[in-house]
C-alpha cells in the first residue's frame, strides 16, 4: 500500500513545521492520484503514533481539473476510459496521465493539471 508512504511524508512535513504542538492538519487529496482515503487515514494515524505526533486530520478531495495547452479546453479527470493498469500507473506517477489521456477536444497529450494532482498539505494549525 503505497498510500502509507504518502501518509508518512505528510507526518514528516508536520514534524518539520511544529514538532511539539497538538496539530490540526488540513490535507488536499487530488483526484488524479486516486488515493485510497481509508488506507491513507490509517497510515496517517499509525505514523503519527510512531513519531509521537499529536494531530487530527481534515482531508478534502479535490477534483482534478485539466486544461489543454493546445486548444485550451478544460475538463475533469475521470478514470472512466482507462484500463485498470493505466489507472494504477497514474496512481503511482500522476504525470503519466499525459501518457494515457488526451484532450477530449483535440487529442493532445500536452495539458496542464490545473489542480487536483495528488497529496498536498494545505494548512498546519496548532489546536
Amino acid at each position, binding site marked *: *500500500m503505497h498510500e502509507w508512504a504518502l501518509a508518512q511524508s505528510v507526518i514528516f512535513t508536520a514534524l518539520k513545521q511544529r514538532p511539539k504542538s497538538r496539530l490540526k492538519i488540513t490535507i488536499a487529496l487530488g483526484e488524479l492520484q486516486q488515493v485510497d482515503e481509508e488506507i491513507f487515514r490509517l497510515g496517517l494515524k499509525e505514523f503519527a503514533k510512531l513519531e509521537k505526533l499529536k494531530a487530527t486530520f481534515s482531508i478534502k478531495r479535490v477534483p482534478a481539473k485539466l486544461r489543454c495547452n493546445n486548444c485550451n479546453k478544460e475538463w475533469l479527470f475521470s478514470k472512466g476510459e482507462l484500463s485498470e493498469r493505466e489507472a494504477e500507473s497514474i496512481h503511482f506517477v*500522476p504525470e503519466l496521465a499525459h501518457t494515457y489521456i488526451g484532450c477530449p477536444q483535440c487529442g493532445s497529450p500536452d495539458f496542464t493539471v490545473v489542480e487536483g494532482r495528488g497529496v*498536498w498539505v494545505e494548512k498546519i494549525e496548532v489546536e
Partner: protein
Amino acid sequence: MDPRLDIIGERIKGVKRLIAVAGGKGGVGKSSVASVLALKLASQGRAVGLLDLDFCGPTPHLILGADTSEFPKEDKGVIPPKVAGIKLMSVAYYSKEANPLRGSELSNSIKELLAVTLWGKLDYLILDMPPGTSDTFLDVAKLLKPEFILITTPSKLSKATVEKNKNLIEEMGLKVVATIENLGKDIRTDSSFEQAVGSTKLLLNTQFSADLNKITEQLKRNLNTT
C-alpha cells in the same frame, strides 16, 4: 506544502554513495555504463540500487532484461524489484509508451518516485541521467547532491558538451569523480555488447564490463572513506 520534499531525505538516508551517471550528449553510453556498473558492483556483493531518471527514453530495464510486466510490490511504500541483485526503479514499470512530459512534470514525477521508493540500506544508488542540463539535472543537483560520473565519446561534439557540463557541475559545488571516454580510450567499442543487451549474465562477460574494472575498483576503494 509539498510533503514529498520532507520525506526524500528519509528515503535515501540508508544510501552510502549517490552517483549520477551523466554527460551532456545523448547516446554516449550513460545508461550502458550505469547499468553495467550497477551489475558489477552487485555481482561483487555490494548493495546497489539503480534509478532510471530518463523518463523520455528509459533503457536500463532493457539493458538488464528486467521484467516490467508487473508493478513493483508495495509495503508501506514501493519496493524496487531486484534484477540480478540490483534494486531497479524505473518509469518503465508504469509506462511502455512515449511519455510526453514537460519539464515541470518531469520534476514532479521524479519527486514522486523519490518520495515513495523504499531503497533500504545501499552501498551505492546509481542514477541514470537523461541528456542535457534541464529539470532532471537541476532537481537531482538540488534534492540529492550526488557525485557525478560523466560519459563522453571521443567526438568533438561530445567532448565540447561534456566539458561545459563539468564546469557547470563544479560551479554548483558538486563533485565529478570521473570523466569516462566511451567508444574510445576508456571503454572500447564492443561489438558483442548489443547482443549481450537483455542478459545480465552475458553483460558481465563483455569487454565493455571488463573496461569498467578501473572505475568499479575506484568506487569500491573510496566507499569507506567518504
